[in-house]
């Protein structure tokens, strides 16, 4: 794909549900083709059990993900200028990503993805909402970046 990026940063509001899922999916689908990370506008939540469960269904491991904000990324030495593309999965992170273009040369894309955290009563309804968010990310990713790389099991 002509505009397949060398490096992608996925972002959402808390780096606890949507952007960690996107990071894991991207790594599974495209392996080493791109350097992939994720971050949140702020870090005030951790990956929850529903995210872990629906990712496990696809063979993705999220347990070890530690949520972090843009600010923490920079503090910890993950230089934002190294990213070609920032994909924002929420309106708030889209705005935050545009703010970063003041300091860094980044392309920004907005992929509207359902926030499943406040949807559904009960475990099954919640899992359904999280699956919906996961599948929205997957479909958007495949449409944007093309078929998964040869040699992966996606």
């Amino acid at each position, binding site marked *: 794909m002509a505009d397949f990026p060398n490096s992608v940063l996925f972002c959402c509001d808390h780096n606890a549900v949507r952007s960690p899922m996107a990071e894991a999916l991207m790594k599974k689908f495209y392996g080493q083709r791109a350097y992939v990370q994720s971050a949140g506008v702020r870090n005030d939540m951790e990956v929850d059990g529903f995210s872990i469960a629906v990712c496990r269904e696809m063979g993705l491991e999220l347990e070890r993900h530690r949520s972090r904000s843009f600010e923490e990324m920079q503090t910890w030495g993950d230089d934002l200028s190294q990213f070609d593309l920032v994909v924002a999965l929420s*309106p708030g992170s889209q*705005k935050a990503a545009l703010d970063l273009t003041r300091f860094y040369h980044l392309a920004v894309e907005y992929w*509207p993805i*359902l926030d499943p*955290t406040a949807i559904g009563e009960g475990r099954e309804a919640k899992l359904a909402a999280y699956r919906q968010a996961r599948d929205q990310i997957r479909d958007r990713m495949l449409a944007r970046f093309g078929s998964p790389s040869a040699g992966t099991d996606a």
Partner: protein
Amino acid sequence: MRDRAAFITRNLTLQTVEGVALYQAHARSRLSRLGDVPPYWAYVWAGGAALARHVTETGMARGQRVLDFGAGSGIVGIAAAKAGAAEVWADEPDPWARAAIGLNAAANAVAVGFGAAPVDLLLCGDVFYSADVAATVLPVLDDWRARGIPVLIGDPGRAALPRTRLHLVAEYSVHDMGDAPDKLTMTGVYDYQP
């Protein structure tokens, strides 16, 4: 437009920001359903919040015909109307935002019109968040300024803010979209120079 209004009243909640009642997104709003144009109108941006506070605190829009340019939620124009503006018009390309502006104006019992009308003052909150938008907006602001209409800009220092053309009038500490509830951002109100 009626469908959009129904969606907004069903999925967003009225909240008061800078003294203006506005339909605001919350965790259950599911605005991802609205597609690929970010629903910026469902949130208050720092630039709009600062301009709203400025017109409220200074009363500078009293008796004026005002255009809220890039209105979003309409917070700036509605604040101007509440502070005694003679007429308020909104310029906003997003049809979802226009639906929200209509509902928000009604929630504050003020009138905000759409369309080309002669005005005395242009208020422009937070439109310099992207180079593309800035490139579209600046010629329009230049055009109004060339006709002698004062242009006030509210902005927290976004990427494409035309700093060399601005004279700082006031600064306010306000909340910005996406930030933690208790985080405030120093935001300028600027006079756009010809």
